[in-house]
């Protein structure tokens, strides 16, 4: 084949440009650590990466949501535990003062303590977390119990989505747990009734409260179990989301991120190729008849 000077120069130019492009590509890959940065770098991978990123973001949001719900349920549990303790103390006083040997004065003194317990239970029932009332159902913007112990909340239970189309309760029904709706015990009213019986030195009345207080303690314990069960579910969901995130992130990284060893090898090869191209071009430029004609 006849080779002209233009072919020599343009060939050198093209080969050098190709070598430099390969060098630049591998060097950028190493510097950024990313293999697929544009949709056309690898169109199939680009769709997969976007899809995995969407899934990862969703899992992150699910984790955040479940963590918040767990915090709220833990606050609920703390409040229920405090109410349970108060109720247990009221039951203890009722058991003690149901004995006819106690005087009216002693019962009046106990009544004061029981009134205090009722007030503390009311305060716990109106507890707020993250600026919302925990025992109001959906009506969480205002106190669910008034001073007289009337329930102003509703019977709704909030749910969150923990997986596509799968929802999980993240609150308990306060009307059931505290007011005994559906056949249970109104725990605060029981304590208030005990206080009233003690104040009036009504021994039979005090004895009559024992069963209700016992049922209330069980009711609050059940509510705590329910709340704890939900926490367990949410923690499992969070842990599963974390595990899935790790595996999805690994799968995405495998597709999107640069294989540094491979990129390094390609960069070394491109460097060698560029050196060879420059060397051979330089040599071929020197070989001309002009150097010999005088």
């Amino acid at each position: 084949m006849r080779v002209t000077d233009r072919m020599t120069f343009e060939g050198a130019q093209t080969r050098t440009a190709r070598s430099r492009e390969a060098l630049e590509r591998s060097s950028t890959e190493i510097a950024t650590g990313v293999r697929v940065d544009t949709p056309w770098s690898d169109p199939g991978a680009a769709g997969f990466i976007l899809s995995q990123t969407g899934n990862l973001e969703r899992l992150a949001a699910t984790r955040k949501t479940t963590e918040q719900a767990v915090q709220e349920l833990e606050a609920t549990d703390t409040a229920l535990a405090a109410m349970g303790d108060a109720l247990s103390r009221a039951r203890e006083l009722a058991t003690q003062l149901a004995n006819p040997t106690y005087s009216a004065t002693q019962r009046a003194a106990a009544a004061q303590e029981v009134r205090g317990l009722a007030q503390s239970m009311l305060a716990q029932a109106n507890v707020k977390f993250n600026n919302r009332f925990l025992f109001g159902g959906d009506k969480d913007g205002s106190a669910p119990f008034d001073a007289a112990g009337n329930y102003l909340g509703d019977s709704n239970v909030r749910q969150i989505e923990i997986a596509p189309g799968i929802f999980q309760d993240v609150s308990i029904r306060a009307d059931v747990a505290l007011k005994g709706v559906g056949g249970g015990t109104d725990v605060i009213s029981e304590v208030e009734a005990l206080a009233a019986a003690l104040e009036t030195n009504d021994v039979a009345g005090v004895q009559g409260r024992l069963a209700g207080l016992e049922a209330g303690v069980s009711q609050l314990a059940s509510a705590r179990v329910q709340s704890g069960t939900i926490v367990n579910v949410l923690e499992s969901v969070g842990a599963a989301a974390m595990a899935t995130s790790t595996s999805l992130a690994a799968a995405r990284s495998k597709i999107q991120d640069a294989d540094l060893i491979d990129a390094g090898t390609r960069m070394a090869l491109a460097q060698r190729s560029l050196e060879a191209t420059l060397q051979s071009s330089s040599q071929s430029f020197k070989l001309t008849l002009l150097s010999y004609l005088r």
Partner: protein
Amino acid sequence: MADLFSLLGNASASLAAQRGLSQTASNNLQNVNTPGYSRQRAELAAVLPAERVGGAFMGQGAVLAGVTQARDRFLESQVPANLASAARYRAQADAVSALAAFNLEQPGGPAAALNGYFGAMRVLSQNPSDVGLRQAAVNSAQAVGIAFNSASQQINTARSAVDDRLKGDVETINQLAQRLADLNKEVREARADGASPNDLLDTRQRVQDQLVEMTGAVPVPAANGDVGLALGKGVSLVTGDQAARLSLLANPSNNGLLDVRITPSGGANARTVDASVLGGSTGGLLEARDGTLKTALDGLDTLAFDFASATNAAHQAGVALDGSSGADLFNAGISSAGAATRLSVNPAIAGDVKLLQASDSAGSLPGNNKALLNVLAVADAALSNGQTVMTGMSQLTSSFGANVASAQGLAEHHEALKAHVEGLRESTSGVSIDEEMVHLSRAQRAFEAVSKVIQITDQMLDTLMKLK
């Protein structure tokens, strides 16, 4: 018998022939870097008829018979198609790969914004009465609008950039087409006396190559030596010394983008031509603008419209903290055309986040989140194309990437083919400095030798003159 004076005359003519040889080599050397230049060869021939002297024919020296070009018509016929295809796909690839809207690492892109939006809504669903979380959710919804606006703006800018380039290209094509028509006429006139106007032919070839690259036209050689150019579907660009004219006209049904129109050389009515008629870089630009970029824009519009419609349907059924209901969360217009550009959050909700309709009942405010869960369900709902919004976004990105990758791949493929045939053409027609130096030296030697003939003949004449 030939006398010494005729010997001097012959030598003088031969000197001129050698000078022609050296001048041609010199001309080749001076044009070694001229694009489209085909090396020329000086053809020497013995002077005819030879002189009859007795029983023998005595030669009368050498003469410059002509200067020809080293060209291979077969190779040259392979060049135009490759020139046009390489230019077409390169123009297409460059026009579409400038778009960064779908880049995976692009901050604030639609995919990232949608992920952020669904995440914020999910977090809000856990505590819908929290005004701070409401604000975050509404901000993320606004980010979705801005991301779609920005992506569609980028696509529209890329499409408009094609028009800007078309404006310059069409003017250049018109000038080149007219130049080719004029060159046909000049070549015809120059050939009238039988000589080959090599430099004019080179110029015409160069103009022809430029036009082929820009329009994808096919050269049509005529019997009289003219070169015509035909676009697709038999539309003529240049015929003999007549050239058609291209023009641009805004098309309202294509967002006011420019249609390319052609007015035939006879002055007939102008007609619109698309990428099936125009090839080369112009066709590639039209394909990029009305193909890949428009498909991406339409896809983005459809996605924005479907997403907004599905979200609004769920949101309308909800109740805001003030008890109001029935409001849209997003504004995207009444049709998908231009929806990505219009997508925005209802200004009333943007101004007061309490108007976000998260509850499904006015009686269970403010903590009810059931309407919000329905809004969130849009993430997994099949939209008009049967895909979810994120799957649609992924497919849109992949599809755009595949189109760009295909154009880039085809551009590289055709550029390699073009380089190959141009290399073959250069191998035949290109100038080699070494070769020309040899030709120059050869002419120099011959010139010296013929000069010596003159010197010796002169000495012989001198000898004769001194005879007593």
